[in-house]
């Protein structure tokens, strides 16, 4: 019974997932929403913010988790990070890690 319910739910998710096949450039597009403050492709201008381009994925993932959970005191990122799903944040993290 429980397994059957799980299978039904899983299939439903799969159907939705297929209907909304992810854009091949989704990571690029999501990362571009950060550029206004963090620079094009994470190549920040000036000294106020850290460079996201080339930041190791686990390091950035850790920081974003701290912002989301509120364990790190910041001015604005704790509010912005809550607007993204964990899957979207992972795509963003992976995109910036690939930039040089």
């Amino acid at each position, binding site marked *: 019974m429980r397994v059957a319910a799980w299978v039904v739910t899983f299939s439903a998710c799969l159907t939705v997932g297929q209907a909304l096949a992810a854009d091949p450039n*989704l990571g*690029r597009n999501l990362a571009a*929403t950060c550029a206004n403050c963090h*620079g094009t492709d994470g190549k920040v201008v000036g000294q106020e913010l850290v460079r996201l381009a080339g930041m190791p994925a686990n390091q950035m993932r850790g920081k974003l988790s701290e912002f989301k959970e509120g364990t790190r005191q910041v001015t604005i990122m704790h509010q912005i990070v*809550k607007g993204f799903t964990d899957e979207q944040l992972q795509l963003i993290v992976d995109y910036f890690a690939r930039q040089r």
Partner: protein
Amino acid sequence: MTWHRRDVLTAAATVTGASLLSPRPSWSQSAARVVVIGGGYGGAAAARYLKRWGGKKVNVTLVERNKQFISCPLSNLVLGGSKTLADLTRSYERLAKTPVRMVHDEARAIDPVKRTVKLASGATLSYDRLVVPPGIEFMWEEVPGMANAAAQERILHAWKAGPQTLALRKQLEAMPDGGVYALSIPVAPYRCPPGPYERACQVASYFKQAKPRAKVLVLDANDKIVSKTALFDKVFQDMYGGIIEYRPNSRLTDVDVATRTAKLEVEDVRADVLNVVPPQRAADIAQQAGLITANKRWCEVNWLSMESKAQPHIHVLGDATLAAPMMPKSGHMANQHAKLAAAAILNILSGQEPNPTPVAVNTCYSFVDATQVIHIATVHQYNADKKLLETVQGSGGVSKEPNVQEGKYALSWAQNIWADTLG
């Protein structure tokens, strides 16, 4: 029609007129033609990202009447005296090297059927996709006394950064100590929701130093402060008590230019410097092209692609759009619209659907004096049922209080968004 199926003979951006005959060697003869009208925060970013992401698939032409980019964000600091207009001015040279073809001209008419744009010089540009971030035009008919050039030189709007900004600063400098500066704010929506309140703070900050007996009178047509309400309310009282007087429900019906009098629905208010931010709509080129579909003011778009609901192949960005709920008319948001549109246009030109899950973020920083800032931030995700970019519950917010750290972030924001927009 997709970019690779088109007739090669008509493929390069068709340009007539001697001043435009400067073909770039890197231009592909089989590339799709995208024309962008307007090089502000939305248009310049769209042009840059179309080329960065599209490469040789796309030829991008940007039509912009001004030779230089002047930022509207931060321009209130020119009134406060901590920045000059030169600090907010950037060149289009790096954008041209992307390469984007810069055409310093003015778009006069769009033919959505022939897919052409007629320019003031007489030249005509052909397009496969057109991007129109037209910006705003003032609805002078709502303030009849200001509907002529002489009136607009005496009573300034300074709501497009440039000569009006400098002229308003000069009026403030010339105003006697003990005088009254009155600022009229239209009913929302208008360009830059927190902008008028930031302006009140900047002028009050200047008066505090230079004219301690002068007053700032805020005549707001809205029933309360439109953006960062509690924060501005507190700043007006704590930092500028006795200088700023805030009057809600004070809609302007007309002005008397000679006496610098604001005629409100209930009373007349005379000022030494009268600054009127008039009601706004999408600019004339949007009207001419049949892009204005809501209240005779704003342009409705498909939020997956920013494509006009009225005219196919034309994408509208920025302040001119009928905004989704809680979406401000800001330079930051125009930049986000631009990237959403650029990604969608490149998909469409390659025969693919636009990204079904776009996201847009907004941040607006307001300077309450020369160094302290308050912010508002929102995150918008696409809701497929409502076909809207919707704010995410639990996300976004405002500053706790004015602070110097965010003042540094705000200046850093400017440097980064200018570089992201212009190269």
